[in-house]
């Protein structure tokens, strides 16, 4: 059975047809060409598909595509404004907070959600907030530092 979904993705009106049991992640990747959200597990354990749904951080692999009907989806592709990187994206680049980069979109989306909720997190708060995002390359050191440094810069901006 297929369903037609009308939704807003990164501010743009989108309409797509999908199977009723398809995930939002599959819809983003396979139907809309938004492959920045990654599938690392498909079971909500790795966070590589982190997106915002009506302002709430979710794993797109655990949301049905049909659930996006009439809602607002924000993905990594919408994080930079035009050519201007979000401060987190810039800091991840400058501070070498990525190696292979497969987990990076999920970390950025999740970290942005954290800083919107808590502009002055402690290291422990950053570590626990990002505990749903797996990275196998970095040992998290440079990622956590990048988030803390970005928070400090955004507060003083």
């Amino acid at each position, binding site marked *: 059975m297929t369903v037609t979904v009308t939704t807003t993705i990164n501010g743009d009106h989108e309409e797509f047809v999908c199977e009723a049991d398809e995930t939002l992640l599959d819809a983003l990747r396979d139907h809309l060409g938004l*492959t920045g959200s990654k599938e690392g597990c498909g079971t909500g354990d*790795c966070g590589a598909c982190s997106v915002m749904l009506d302002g709430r951080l979710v794993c797109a692999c655990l949301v049905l595509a049909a659930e996006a009907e009439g809602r607002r989806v924000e993905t990594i592709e919408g994080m930079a404004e035009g050519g201007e*990187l979000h401060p987190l994206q810039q800091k991840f680049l400058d501070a070498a907070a990525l190696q292979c980069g497969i987990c990076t979109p999920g970390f950025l989306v999740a970290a942005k959600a954290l800083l919107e909720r808590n502009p002055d997190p402690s290291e*422990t708060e950053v570590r626990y907030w990002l505990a749903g995002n797996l990275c196998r390359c970095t040992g*998290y050191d440079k990622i956590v530092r990048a988030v803390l440094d970005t928070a400090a810069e955004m507060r003083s901006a």
Partner: protein
Amino acid sequence: MPDQSVLPRQFRVVGQRKRRPDGIDKVTGRARFGADMTAPGMLWGLVLRSPHPHARIRSIDTSKAEALPGVKAVVTGRDFEGGERDDVSINCMAGGKALYDGHAVAAVAATSKHAARAALKLIEVDYEVLPHVTDVDAAMQPDAPLLHEDMVTDGLQPPPDRPSNIAARHEIGHGDVETGFAEADEIVELSFKTEATHQGYIEPHACVASVSPDGSADLWVCTQGHFMVRNVCAAMLGLESSQLRVTASEIGGGFGGKTTVFIEPVALALSRKANRPVKMQMTRAEVFRATGPTASSSVDCRVGVTKDGRITAAQAELRYQGGAFAGAGADMGAMAIFTPYDIAHVKAVAWDVVTNRPKLAAYRAPGAPMAAFAAESTLDEAARRIGMDPLELRLKNAAREGTKAAYGPTFPRIGLTACLEAVRDSAHYKAPLGPNQGRGLACGFWFNFGGETCTTVNVNKDGTIGLSVGTPDIGGSRASMCAMAAEEFGVPYEKVRTVIADTASLGYNDVTDGSRVTFSSGLATIQASRQAIKRLCQRAAIMWGIDEEAVVWEDGHAKPASPNAGDFAPLSLAEIAAESANTGGPIAGHHEVNAEGAGVSFGVHLCDLEVDPETGFVKVLRYTAAQDAGKAVNPDYVEGQMQGGSAQGIGWALNEGYVYGEDGKLQNAGFLDYRIPVASDLPMIDAIIVEEPNPGHPYGVRGVGETSIAPPLAAVGNAIRAATGVRLTETPMAPPRILAALDAKVGDPDGRMTGQERDAPGKKARDGLPDDGLP
């Protein structure tokens, strides 16, 4: 081997923390990884996997699946019989037997994922279930279920007269260990086991294959070595190398696990049969069940020391299982196990064993972490026995320039003592510890590799540089290549663009493994750049009408070598490039090499942790890793390798491990139950880069990718010993195991003996040391 290293020099770009060129696409979601590619008319491919750990395949009926609407091709082992059927091929698609839970037995390609999933359920496989074995020690027993009726142990004299699960025996060493043990005042003997762990790269294997009716084929794939993929797939499918062009996508982690093929030949076979492009992507469960975990191990270790801290002898027996095919890497473990130390009498015997588990793939310093766990834990106990600081014991015995390693070579300049001294001089080493806290130290070693490498550098007409390398960039190597080319040409870092060329565009390159890329692709990049610079000088000579010998290259410009050569204003690279059409055409440099002189690598790790005596929960509090990089081309990414390897090793030590049930099935094939470290599990990881130049590289570079995973298992185990008084000898050192060891200690009137030691009468393990770890 020529001494490549130049005198100490000032680098202009190398050594700086330059931004990685591929970073912008990775922070914006534009980077294209294995699963991010599509092709016109593409089908979806899926694999049917054996639910049994060991079963004879009597027959496979695919007729119902083939009849399902949308299904365009089904393949089984039969479809691969025309090509080479070696272990890799049989691992990709089973032949007469399924050898482990998750072994591929058939595959389908259909117009949608839905149809492909439905088709898998319609394939009927008639299995005759056979007895299985998944433990290394059990598999070595004479009555163990036999995986391969033709496997006769290699390396035994006389050769055995019957088959077994023991693929090979290896022995390395020098001196005479009994003589050495006779000189010892104390002998410590312990046995260890480590469970298999998975590389745990976040990106599952994925590819898009497209075979045309004329036999030419293209493959897009996340891999550590697209030339390897081409050669292996071409052999399996009966193609010529020139027919198959493989393009390496961005790779979402590999750690050794993407140095072989799994779904790639299957996708090609499906595409050939369906006459359409086929995309395949593993699920996470498939990654765990059917791709390379590391070996699990069982190691007996014996070390003799004098009272004043000299190691007189070291001996080990290493038993590794690497899944259903030969090649568990126990020989590498034996070669690595005592290599950090200068010991006159060493013997290490390695047994390479097969079991009903997925075929091992390389995992960062393959074979070394479990060996180091045994050796470094045993040494820690020896230090306690003689009342010596564990770091001092290591420093006293550390391998140095001129030390002959038991596996053969005599070391040139190496950095182990410098790493030990760096850790000794760190603030961490002197910091106080609280109750239930302990500090552990361990060393690690890896060989490093050079290998076949081929690189092309093109000077563009606008004065920028295009660099083509054949080694997939797994941890930031494009940044290093740009830096080394910029260093040679004397142009800004940003003027160089490095791409990973496809297999049709460059000569063969070995896979990205053995910590080899910054070393060997770097070496080839430097040499190719020097060749291009020579040509730039020739072109300048033409422009000036003087002899080419009278032109030198300095600071990105051609200059007359001396006033006698003539009075010419320096020509920039861009100026020469702009005139290239008039001076002989495009300007390029090329270098191909089978690189030697990779330069061995050592690291020293220091771990502080706290053990909750009520629950056995371990919290890592502080962690320092020191490692010799020779020359850190980009310190950010050298630190990243050290930190990432440390985190993986901590996971291996505390949490990670394959769990097999009595039924021979993997019980934890997902990130929920196979738990890799998350951000809240770890502290910051302090990385200390030591630079002892490698004489085999023009800049002194050593590989840095792998060594960092060798020390953590023992560093953690030694810290637990210091915190609790109990010696853990099995990984993962998870709370249930720690609690059991603590309970056993309480039940022991001596309060000092571990369960393992109690089980081995005569092996005295008393010591008078307080359990306060290091000073």
